[in-house]
């Protein structure tokens, strides 16, 4: 399928999935997965990043519109979108020459795991910190970050497992 159409559909699908399904899970009263950040993992690496940053920002902002949260999703996803390349260099040892051939699925599981876990934790921490918007209840913020990250990661690896079996 054409790459642009594919990522356009993925964008809309992730917004609807997050807003109408995942935001209503509220496991144990308040724990939600935030699976929409897989957009950052799936989007291909390119030298020019303006489009990618803009799309990530728009994705976060669309979810903010639905969940009345100002710009916290936009802020958090934009941060991990910007620092993605840094962590790819750190954990996966990939440089600009490798970008066109890079596929996250083909990387060894350990390295991939580190990369995804770090970005997920970073995103969730920023999200809950901004949602709380004070330095009180910090223990709550850390706990929420931990629980939601585990939830998101389980969902992410499950869905990767399910969808990659087809090939």
């Amino acid at each position: 399928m054409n790459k642009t159409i594919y990522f356009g559909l993925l964008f809309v699908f992730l917004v609807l999935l997050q807003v109408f399904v995942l935001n209503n899970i509220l496991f144990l009263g308040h724990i939600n997965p935030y699976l929409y950040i897989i957009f950052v993992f799936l989007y291909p690496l390119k030298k020019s990043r303006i489009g990618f940053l803009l799309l990530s920002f728009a994705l976060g902002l669309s979810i903010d519109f639905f969940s009345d949260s100002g710009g916290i999703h936009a802020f958090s996803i934009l941060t991990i979108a910007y620092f993605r390349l840094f962590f790819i260099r750190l954990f996966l040892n990939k440089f600009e020459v490798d970008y066109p051939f890079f596929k996250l699925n083909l990387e060894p599981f350990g390295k991939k795991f580190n990369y995804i876990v770090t970005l997920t934790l970073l995103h969730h921490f920023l999200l809950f910190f901004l949602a709380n918007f004070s330095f009180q209840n910090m223990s709550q913020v850390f706990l929420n970050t931990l629980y939601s990250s585990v939830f998101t990661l389980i969902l992410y690896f499950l869905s990767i497992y399910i969808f990659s079996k087809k090939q």
Partner: protein
Amino acid sequence: MQQLVYFFQKFKYFLFFLLLQFIALTLIFNNLNFQKSKYVNSANALTGGLYNKVANISDYFSLKATNTKLLEENTLLRNFLQQKRTLSFSVDSIVIDTIKYHQKYTVTSAKIINNNYAKAFNFLTINKGTAAGLDKEMAVVNGKGIVGFTDNLSINYARIQSILNKNTRINARLKNGYFGTLKWNGLDYRIVQLIDIPRQAPVKIGDTIETGGKSAIFPEGILIGEVVEINNDNAVDNVINVKLFNDMSAIGPVYVIKNLQKEEIKFLENEADE
């Protein structure tokens, strides 16, 4: 000049990142400020419309519970009506008291199409907007107690600032008349906090808390909840934990109350400032 261009070339992604991040932060700050939260909210045609479509389907799952609630409320209102009737029949000539016909509030029914209660700053969306005569700062209640007040409106939808929002302050009182301020600490969606109650006020576990009627938004005497915990130690803030009568995780139909004399009150209060 060339160095400036070179600088922009080198850091263009970082500068773009900073620009977008700045926009996001501005939106976050504005959203927490009641006067400025205009742009990012769920009361626009697209998000409101989508929420409405989904709510139309998911409503079927709670039909039974909603019906029971409405029936309970109808019973309550019918009882009131009977009381009134007996009162008026006991007087042998009909008294026409014009003051009683001066209506102060009007009530509009609406439906919650998007409910939030697990965050620190919660907002709800309802399916009525300016087309139904709604405006900013109107009370939203249901049969069991208060829900919140309207803050942002489009033509067909309105966003409600929930009572479960760390910025919400509502004038509330004990049944015996001592009043304080109701707010929420963002932790448990069943428990809200009543502060500024005078120390000499006789508070007991199980006392009923209702709205105080000292604001232009909420009518007097709407139920809120009951006292479950009293802070008796020598803390500076005399906090009383109140358990809400409403289950904020399951609310469907609500009423929006418009204060017909609000403009008059506001005008008077503003005039005093000048």
